[in-house]
């Protein structure tokens, strides 16, 4: 009775762990990386000019401009972040014309003041500041301030074009088209806004509409959605075929324990997906490779355990004693072997970026889950069948050979 109770407990333990993994998987879906669902990964690098070197202020200026440009594309969940001293990373989900999007994002837009004929009178370099404000009648306006140099030029321009319209353009996009009402030198107002929010929007564009320095697209990776789909399907087939072949081999070589190992592998797969989902990991194509490789490690752990049990069996111990001793000795080997792989995965995750990191992270998680599976799941599954004839037979664990 005591044995049966213990066995029931072990069964409940396994089912509970698997249920938890399934729960995690369905509650938090696994994110797919850009290479699987399609999208672009772009690295922009700021280029210092003669007038301006790269500093924190310049970089946040660039970042704001890029964010605005990306938002104009109207994509869901774009990512924009700084990297290092002079780089910005942009990640876009699948767009129809990725290369055009990259082109738009990376262009060095110039803010210009143009006369009605379209000729450029002044550039954004001369604008010192622009903010949203209210004029004396309480109407929303954009209040702007020129630099010293700009003030002189702007005075001449406004004198010449008084009563006419001067368009303010960002590249070729007309932001606002105010009429010159008086001669302006240092400070001016643009009126005609319906709300202070609309004024604020233009103020930002005038203030920060152009990139302070040019940026270069130093790296871009784009995967069309079609390829992503193909990759997922392929990897899935490859993984399943690999898994099935390994399972068949294990059953052939180790007999009934091999069947148990195959079952443990399936449980391992479920636990792994649950863990990845629980950690909200992003799965990339190399990440899938890392996963499939960690399946190899999981199989290896089982092989080490079985070989140890087989050795103990050959030395004449009873099945129970062999299993106890086999596991005890296998643990040490598995830990030493897996820790070195973990070290590699950690260093890889720390020192590289992008897709290789995705590989390292999933490999690391895979190895951890594989150790857990070997120590707790394999052990309990084997224990469940200790008294079964299937494990008692000499052919089990391949002990009869040689």
């Amino acid at each position, binding site marked *: 009775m005591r044995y049966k109770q213990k066995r029931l407990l072990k069964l409940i333990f396994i089912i509970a762990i698997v249920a938890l993994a399934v729960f995690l998987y369905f509650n938090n879906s696994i994110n797919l990386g850009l290479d699987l669902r399609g999208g672009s990964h772009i690295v922009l690098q700021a280029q210092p000019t003669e007038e301006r070197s790269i500093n924190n202020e310049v970089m946040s200026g660039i970042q704001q401009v890029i964010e605005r440009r990306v938002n104009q594309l109207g994509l869901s969940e774009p990512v924009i972040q700084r990297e290092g001293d002079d780089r910005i990373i942009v990640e876009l989900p699948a767009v129809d014309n990725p290369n055009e999007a990259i082109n738009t994002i990376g262009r060095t837009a110039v803010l210009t003041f143009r006369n009605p004929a379209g000729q450029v009178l002044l550039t954004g370099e001369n604008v010192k500041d622009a903010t949203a404000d209210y004029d004396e009648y309480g109407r929303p306006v954009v209040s702007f301030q020129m630099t010293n140099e700009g003030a002189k030029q702007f005075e001449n321009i406004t004198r010449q074009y008084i009563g006419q319209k001067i368009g303010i353009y960002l590249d070729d996009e007309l932001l606002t088209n105010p009429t010159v009402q008086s001669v302006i030198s240092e400070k001016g107002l643009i009126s005609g806004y319906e709300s202070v929010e609309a004024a604020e929007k233009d103020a930002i564009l005038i203030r920060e509409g152009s990139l302070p320095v040019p940026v270069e697209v130093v790296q871009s990776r784009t995967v*069309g959605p079609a390829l992503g789909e193909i990759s997922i399907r392929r990897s899935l087939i490859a993984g399943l075929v690999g*898994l099935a072949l390994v399972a068949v081999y294990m059953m052939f070589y180790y007999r009934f324990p091999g069947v148990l190992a195959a079952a443990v592998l399936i449980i391992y797969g479920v636990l792994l997906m649950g863990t990845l989902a629980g950690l909200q990991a992003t799965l990339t194509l190399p990440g899938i490779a890392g996963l499939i490789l960690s399946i190899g490690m999981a199989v290896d752990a089982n*092989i080490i355990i079985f070989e140890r049990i087989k050795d103990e069996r050959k030395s004449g111990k009873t099945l129970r004693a062999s299993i106890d001793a086999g596991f005890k000795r296998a643990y*040490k080997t598995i830990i030493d072997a897996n820790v070195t792989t973990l070290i590699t995965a950690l260093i890889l995750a720390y020192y590289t970026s992008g897709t290789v990191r995705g590989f390292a992270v999933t490999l690391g998680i895979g190895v951890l889950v594989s150790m857990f599976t070997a120590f707790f799941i394999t052990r309990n599954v084997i224990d469940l069948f200790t008294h079964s004839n299937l494990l008692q037979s000499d052919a089990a664990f391949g002990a009869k050979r040689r």
Partner: protein
Amino acid sequence: MDILGKRRIWYTISIAVLAVGLLFLAINGLNFGIDFQGGTLLEFKFDQQITNQQVRNVLQDIEIAGDSKIQQSDTQGIQGVIIRTQKLSPEQTIEVEEALRNEYPSTEMLRSESVGAVIGQELRTKALLALLIASVAIVLYISVRFEFRFAIVSIITLLHDVLITLGIFAILGREVNTPFVAALLTIIGYSINDTIVIFDRIRENMKMMHKTSFKELANQAVIDTLPRSINTSLTTLITILAIYLFGGASIKVFMLALFIGMFAGTYSSIFVASPLLVTWTHRITNKK
């Protein structure tokens, strides 16, 4: 079975393969992909077969990347081409795509990758750094868990595996890219893993078989772990082969490197690591 007694044979085989590989490395060098060299890679797919020459004609017409390397994409079920060239600007990439679409309306862009030379250099440095640090960390770990000589022998063994993989890539002229570096690191992890399982058994035998000579107890350890070595590498190689055959084009380089490395790793853990340990013991430890 006296595996360690025949260590001269195993050393000769390893040195021969290494020598040929290194010779090719010295003469041909490695075929660095755009990841490490900078450049642009474009992959397009069509609903009919388009030859390399047809693509080249289009490129030469627009005078962009006319001298690029063009290759049929070997992803099954897809008629595509891969174009490799010096780094193109986003505008030029758009021009290429449009020119191809004008000529062949079914053109669809599968992927485009563009890496600046500076980034390529950075990736190369980072990859080397990662390899170095990983090696040092592993030596430290093994020195603590085993002995210093075990650590040095494991490092020689993994260098052996990495160099063989690099050499064979130089012989085949296959492209070396970021996934290749990831593969090398995995090989290091696996090679160490394989070696440690045997070393673990030697360590155990050293405790239990006091009267046996080191060579004999090491030989026994190699033989006892042989079924595990064979089963593990077989199952791993089966998985890798499955991914190589069924996986997409972008994963193939990775899997090829892994296959070569794993094979070398299994060989070296049996025929290089333990023999070296015996040689070390005979030549250095026993002379003290």
